C-alpha cells in the first residue's frame, strides 16, 4: 500500500509540459477549486438554508430551483461592486490583508490527505504544519483590521488575534494526543493507522477510552480558531458591526468569506483525520459482507473525508444558530481555565494509556 499511497499526486507532480511544472499547478489548483466550489454550494448556500430551516424560514428561494443559484448571483453581484479602498486606509495592508488570510487557510490544504492516493505534499510533519500555518491567518486579520483605519475593524482584529493565538494551545495539545496515539505527524500515516476491517472501531476516537476528551477540546478550540459562533467575537455583528472586515467590499470581501469557509473545512478535515480516520470508511466488514473493503479506495476516500468534513461544518453551523456569543473575558476563561487544563490532563492520560495499553 505504501507505494500506491500518494500515487496520483506524485504522478501529477512529475507532469511537465514544455518544461513547465504544469502538474504542480494543477495539484495546487485542485484544493483551490474545491474550496471555491464547496464555499459556493455548501458553505454559503448550505449555511443560509440550514439557518433558515432551524429558524422556521424558507431561506433563499428565488434564484433557481430552491434558490440553488443564489450564491452565484451573489458572487456576480460582488464582482460588479465597486472595490472601495477607504481614503484614510493604509492601502498596502488593506489590500494585502485578505490575500494573507486566504493563503493562510489555503496552505493547510497542502497537507490534507484527500484520498489514499492524493495529498498535496506528504510532509512528515504534516500535522505540525497544519497547526502552524493557521497562525498566518492572524497576520492577515491584523493587516485587514489595522489597514482599514476603522475603530471597529481594529477592535475586531485585536480580539481575533488574542483569540486565535490563545486557542492554538489547547488545540495543539489536543491534536498531540492524536499524534501520540499514531506515533507520527504525517497526516497520511495517521490516516492509514486508522484503517482496518472493523471500520469505525479503528478510529482513534474509539481506540482509547479518553480520546473523546481531546476530540471535544479540539472541536471547541477549532471553533474559536476559525471565528465561528459562539466564539465569533472578532466579527460580532451586534457589537463590532462586522469586525475586521467592516470596510471591505466587492471581491476583497468575497475573498475573506472564501478564506473563512476554507478554514472551516480545514479544521473539520483535520479533526476527522486525527480522530475519525480521515478517508477511511467507517463501515465495518460483517462476515462475508465486506462493507469496509467495498467502500475503500481513492475515490471512496475522497468521498469519506469530504463527508466527514461536511458533517463537522454542519455541527459548526448548528452551534452558530443555537448559541449566543461569549464575551472576551469569558472566551479567555474558557481557553485558559477550562480547555487548556483539560487538554493537559488528556495529554497525560493518553500518554499513560499508550504506555500501559492492554
Amino acid at each position: 500500500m505504501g507505494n500506491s499511497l500518494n500515487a496520483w499526486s506524485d504522478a501529477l507532480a512529475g507532469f511537465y509540459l514544455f518544461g513547465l511544472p504544469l502538474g504542480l499547478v494543477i495539484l495546487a489548483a485542485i484544493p483551490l477549486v474545491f474550496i471555491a466550489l464547496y464555499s459556493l454550494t455548501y458553505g454559503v448556500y448550505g449555511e443560509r438554508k440550514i439557518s433558515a430551516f432551524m429558524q422556521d424560514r424558507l431561506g433563499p428561494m428565488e434564484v433557481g430551483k430552491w434558490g440553488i443559484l443564489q450564491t452565484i448571483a451573489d458572487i456576480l453581484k460582488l464582482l460588479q461592486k465597486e472595490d472601495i479602498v477607504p481614503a484614510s486606509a493604509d492601502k498596502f495592508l488593506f489590500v494585502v490583508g485578505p490575500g494573507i488570510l486566504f493563503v493562510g487557510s489555503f496552505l493547510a490544504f497542502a497537507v490534507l490527505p484527500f484520498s489514499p492516493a492524493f495529498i498535496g505534499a506528504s510532509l512528515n510533519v504534516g500535522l505540525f504544519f497544519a497547526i502552524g500555518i493557521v497562525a498566518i491567518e492572524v497576520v492577515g486579520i491584523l493587516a485587514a483590521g489595522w489597514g482599514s483605519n476603522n475603530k471597529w475593524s481594529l477592535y475586531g482584529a485585536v480580539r481575533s488575534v488574542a483569540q486565535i493565538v490563545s486557542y492554538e494551545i489547547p488545540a495543539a495539545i489536543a491534536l498531540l494526543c492524536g499524534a501520540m496515539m499514531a506515533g507520527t505527524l504525517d497526516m497520511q500515516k495517521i490516516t492509514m493507522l486508522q484503517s482496518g476491517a472493523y471500520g469505525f472501531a479503528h478510529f482513534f476516537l474509539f481506540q482509547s477510552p479518553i480520546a473523546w476528551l481531546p476530540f471535544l477540546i479540539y472541536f471547541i478550540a477549532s471553533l474559536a480558531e476559525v471565528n465561528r459562533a459562539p466564539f465569533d467575537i472578532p466579527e460580532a455583528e451586534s457589537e463590532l458591526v462586522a469586525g475586521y472586515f467592516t470596510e471591505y467590499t466587492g471581491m476583497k470581501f468575497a475573498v475573506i468569506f472564501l478564506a473563512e469557509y476554507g478554514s472551516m473545512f480545514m479544521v473539520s478535515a483535520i479533526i476527522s483525520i486525527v480522530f475519525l480516520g480521515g478517508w477511511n470508511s467507517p463501515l465495518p466488514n460483517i462476515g462475508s459482507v465486506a462493507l469496509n473493503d467495498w467502500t475503500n479506495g481513492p475515490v471512496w476516500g475522497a468521498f469519506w473525508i469530504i463527508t466527514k468534513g461536511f458533517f463537522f461544518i454542519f455541527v459548526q453551523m448548528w452551534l452558530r444558530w443555537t448559541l449566543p456569543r461569549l464575551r472576551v473575558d469569558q472566551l479567555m476563561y474558557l481557553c485558559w481555565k477550562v480547555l487548556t487544563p483539560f487538554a493537559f490532563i488528556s495529554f497525560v492520560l493518553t500518554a499513560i494509556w499508550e504506555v500501559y495499553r492492554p
Partner: protein
Amino acid sequence: MQELDTAGLGSVRVTRKSDTVVILEKDLATEQMVLAMGPQHPSTHGVLKLECLTDGEVITQAEPYLGYLHRCFEKCCENVDYPAVVPYTDRLDYLAGMNSEFAYAITVEKLLDIEIPRRVEFIRVIVAELNRIASHLVAIGTYGIDLGAFTPFLFCFRDREIILGLLEWASGARMLYNYIWVGGLAYDVPADFLKRVKEFVNYFRPKALELSELLTENEIFVKRTHGIGIMPADVAINYGWSGPMLRGSGVKWDLRRNDPYSIYPELDFKVPVPDGKHSVIGDCLSRHLVRAWEMDESLKIIEQCIDKMPSSEGFNSRSAIPKRIRPKAGEVYGRAENPRGELGFYIESDGKSTKPLRCKARSSCFVNLSAMKDLSKGQLIPDLVAIIGSIDIVLGEVDR
C-alpha cells in the same frame, strides 16, 4: 518605589538607588479612544448615538445623543383635535401602539370625566395585553440578537406575527392601530376574535417555554447577562425608572396594580419581581426575566378577560364617545403601564378649544435611557450592548 506620571506618556514605576533613578516597569503610553457607536449601529435599536470614551475595551464614559428620530409629537398635538392625537400616539412606541393609545385615552377620559362601557374596557385590556406580549417578544428577541443568538429572534417574530395578525383583524392595521379612541373603540372586535385569541394563548404557552429553554436558560446567555449593569432600587427610582426596568431592580411597582386604571383591579395577576435566586437583583438578566415572566402574566390576564367579557348584545363601541371633545379648562397627568414602563401624558386644556393647549408625553424609554451614562461606566463594549438591549429602548418613544 513610586509612580511618576510622565505627562501622558504612560506611567513609569521607578525606584531610587542612592542618586540614580532605576526604572522598574514602564507602561506603554496609551490614549483613550473616542468610539462613536451609532446612530447607524446594529445594536443601538434604532438611531441612538453613544459617544463612548474607551480605554481598550473598557468604556470610561458613554454619552447618549438623541433626537435623530424627533418628529415633533408635542407640537403636532397642539395643532390637531383631541381624537386626532391618537394616531400620533401609535407612533411613539411603535412596538406597543395599543398601550400608547390606551394611556392617551384614559388621560383624556380623566379630564373629560366620562364613563366607559364595560365591554370596551375588556377589549381594551385584551388588545393592550396582546400588544404587551408582542412588544416583549421583540424585546427578548432583539436581546438575543444583541448577545449573538439569532434563532430566538426569529421564533419571537414568528409568534409576534400572529399577534399582529390578530390586532390587524381587530383594528384594521398591523402596527399603527388608531383603535382605542377617547371614550371608546373604533370598532367592536370581529365575531370570532375572542375564540382565536384563546387559541393563541394555548398555542403560545409551549412556544414561550421553548423560547425560554433556547435562550433564557442557556448558560452562555446567563453568563453574559448575570451581574451586568446592576441598578440598585433606590437609584432606579431616583432615575425615574418604571416598568420592567424598575421591577428588575426588585421594586414591586406596577401601575396596573398600584395606580389601577380600567378593569385591572378585577383581574388576578402577579407582578413579577426577581427573587435574587436566578440573577443578581437589578442586573440585565433580572430585567430580561421580568419581561419573560410578564408575558406569562399577560396571557393570564387575557384568559380572564375573555371569560369575563360582557356580551356584545346592543353594544356600540362608540356609544360613549363625545360628539366634540372639548374638555373643561384644567390639567391632567394620566399614565398607564406600557411594556417599557410608565407612559404618561400631561394634557392642559384651556376649556375653549378642541385642541390641547399642551400635550406632553412622558416616555418611559426616554427616562430609562437617561441612566445609560451611569450604567455604562467601566463596562466592556459587549456589556454595553447587553445593557442597551436590556433597557429595551424604542427610539420612536425616546425622541418622540
